[in-house]
């Protein structure tokens, strides 16, 4: 095997790669030297996440949504990493406000705007800072971002336990990676 085609040495547990995978999708594999794989993971996961934002707007990432499904989906979306928390923080601070006589922050409606964190009547020709998505467009946007989080959880586990894929590749057809790890003890050597 030449140096150009060398595969990263599989080890049982790589905490740094796991941590990097949680910070930025694909970064864990990139750190381990599996650069092409890291790039494909990043394109797939970030493509889904930013695709969801493009389709449904910023309202698809909302940990304080009035919709129960969107609030629950945020738990899954969170696995994309700090990007999600930054988007949510911008959403909560810039695009929601508290109206007079209401306790919960909400999005401004047409004819309203946000000034100093409070919902106020808009001036002539002034539009709300954003429009929340509704119906299927909202559902599909939430689904894109949720899938991105779930897939990054898989990528995180793969970066954290790199020997699992190597073991699956070395195992006889029809047996699982966990069987192979249990049988060989270490994960089966080269990929």
């Amino acid at each position, binding site marked *: 095997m030449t140096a150009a085609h060398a595969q990263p040495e599989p080890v049982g547990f790589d905490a740094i790669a796991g941590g990097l995978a949680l910070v930025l999708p694909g970064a864990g594999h990139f750190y381990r030297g599996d650069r092409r794989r890291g790039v494909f993971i990043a394109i797939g996961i970030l493509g889904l996440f930013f695709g969801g934002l493009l389709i449904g707007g910023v309202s698809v990432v909302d940990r304080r949504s009035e919709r129960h499904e969107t609030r629950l989906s945020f738990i899954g979306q969170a696995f994309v990493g700090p990007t999600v928390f930054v988007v949510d923080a911008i959403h909560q601070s810039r695009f929601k406000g508290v109206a007079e006589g209401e306790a919960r922050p909400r999005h401004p409606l047409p004819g309203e705007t946000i000034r100093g964190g409070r919902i106020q009547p808009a001036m002539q020709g002034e539009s709300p800072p954003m429009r929340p998505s509704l119906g299927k467009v909202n559902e599909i946007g939430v689904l894109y971002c949720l899938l991105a989080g779930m897939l990054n959880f898989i990528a995180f586990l793969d970066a954290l336990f790199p020997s699992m*894929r190597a073991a699956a590749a070395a195992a006889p057809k029809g047996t699982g990676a966990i069987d192979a790890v249990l049988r060989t003890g270490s994960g089966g050597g080269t990929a």
Partner: protein
Amino acid sequence: MSMLTVWAVLAYRPFLDPLDAHRFWWALLLPLALFTAMAYKAVRVPVLDRYWRQVGIMSLQIVIGMVALGFAFYLFTQIILPRVLPMPGL
């Protein structure tokens, strides 16, 4: 003028406002299948030699699976259910 109509005529700002895709929402499932297959196969395949072929196959499987599920639910709600539990007036 309804709230939906007012919002639809306002200028579109990418990543802030939603796409006006209510009529072709189903087409958005195609990039979803592609990106999902890209991320999943990048983790799953042992060597990347046949990566794009695997991505193509999985994307197709997802799309066919969703179409089949949609057809199955259509059959159940529009044909089977009305026969099992007929609703007068419908």
